[in-house]
């Protein structure tokens, strides 16, 4: 297959970037999108050009490292999937493909398509610790968890922290990410002790980081490679309302 590529190139965080055009030929339809970029980079290196910098790690949709906006959609046109799970057969032969970084103020560009997502780490850190028994493994079933809660917690915990939610959001809001992290522990007995403190800390850190606000367009859940539901955002809104009320009452 043959493709025309328009790729965002930016030398460093401070320099001004721009779109650059490339052409690539003889790409197998079973090539993954990231492999296609590898092939392009090989050609660039051979012709003495600087290769395109992009992030990837596991390349099987687990780690959440890849972060490309392909043809205007976070992780590309295939949902639910991370960019690494996208194959060239999903594009038309000869198609022009636009590749940009995730554009969120809180994810500053490092170089080309590589962004710094440590804002998400700081949100998680702001959640603080979980008081849990350490040491030898406890007796199985010693902490009863209803199946329904375990399922919901598991759904929320599926978040791989890639930041596609904020990238796709018209407001660059990270509420789907934050709500998944908050809900995951709020559904489980182990998360109860620090429940209020966690939601207050994480939501406030999210605002400090400069993410936007949710206007319920649900673009986030549409692109999420882990299929996190926006119902967790409603859950976070509930958790935050209760926790801030408690805080105001002096708790």
């Amino acid at each position: 297959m043959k493709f025309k590529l328009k790729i965002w190139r930016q030398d460093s965080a401070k320099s001004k970037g721009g779109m650059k055009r490339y052409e690539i030929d003889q790409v197998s339809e079973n090539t993954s999108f990231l492999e296609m970029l590898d092939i392009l980079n090989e050609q660039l290196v051979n012709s003495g050009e600087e290769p395109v910098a992009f992030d990837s790690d596991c390349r099987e949709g687990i780690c959440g490292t890849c972060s490309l906006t392909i043809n205007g959609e976070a992780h590309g046109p295939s949902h639910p999937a991370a960019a690494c799970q996208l194959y060239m057969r999903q594009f038309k032969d000869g198609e022009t493909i636009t590749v940009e970084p995730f554009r969120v103020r809180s994810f500053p560009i490092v170089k080309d398509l590589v962004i710094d997502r440590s804002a998400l780490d700081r949100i998680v850190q702001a959640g603080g610790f979980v008081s849990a028994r350490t040491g030898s493994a406890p007796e199985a079933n010693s902490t009863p968890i209803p199946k329904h809660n375990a399922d919901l917690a598991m759904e929320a915990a599926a978040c791989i922290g890639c930041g596609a939610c904020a990238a796709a959001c018209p407001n660059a809001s990270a509420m789907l990410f934050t709500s998944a992290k908050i809900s995951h522990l709020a559904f489980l007995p182990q998360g109860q002790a620090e429940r209020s403190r966690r939601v207050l800390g994480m939501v406030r850190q999210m605002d400090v980081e400069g993410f936007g606000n949710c206007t319920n367009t649900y673009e986030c859940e549409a692109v999420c490679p882990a299929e996190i539901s926006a119902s967790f955002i409603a859950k976070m809104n509930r958790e935050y309302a209760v926790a801030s009320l408690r805080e105001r009452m002096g708790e």
Partner: protein
Amino acid sequence: MIVAVTGVILILFVIGHLLGNLQIFLGPAWINGYAEHLRDLGPLLWVIRAFLLVDVVAHIYYTVRLAIENRRARPTSYRRKDTVKATFASRHMVMSGLIVLAFIIFHLLQFSFRTTDPRFAILPADPLGHYDVYTMMVLGFSSPLVSGFYILALFLLALHLSHGSSSFFQSLGLNNKNLTPRLAQGGRIFAWLLFVGYSSIPVAVLLGWVTLRTHS
């Protein structure tokens, strides 16, 4: 949350306002009498007006502040941006809201302060001695320009509410696998019913179904 709560109050107002307006189809005595009842509320009417004013100011102030924050959160825009499931309405809430605001100001100038048409201030009272709201509405909507802007503004209001009238549930933390899709659908139907209801009045006036009545 403030946006959601103030929005719900405004939704309740537009429902009440529509029910009041539709009385034009029942004839001058009904609508003029209704308007008189509203004015008879006296100080209570001013409490309601002040409450609505504070509510609408808060709704606009907080949404504009949020919209500014949202713009700042993405200083460099995408060269190409496609949406997967966000509706047109949900992506243009600020635009539809601000045009509706411009309309509300004109609407108040026209029918409450009556500064746009010199005839409104000197309308003779109807046979029951009430201010002739009926004639004012018919005269007002006889202008295709006024009616056109009215219908356009109501179209944008319906667009605004087709997202807003169900979206506030999510903001208040109410989301349920069964209920949420139904609320979204219900919200859209509700918004477009409002549009049909409100637009029926200028359309009826322009088509000559609702005409001036001379009373002796």
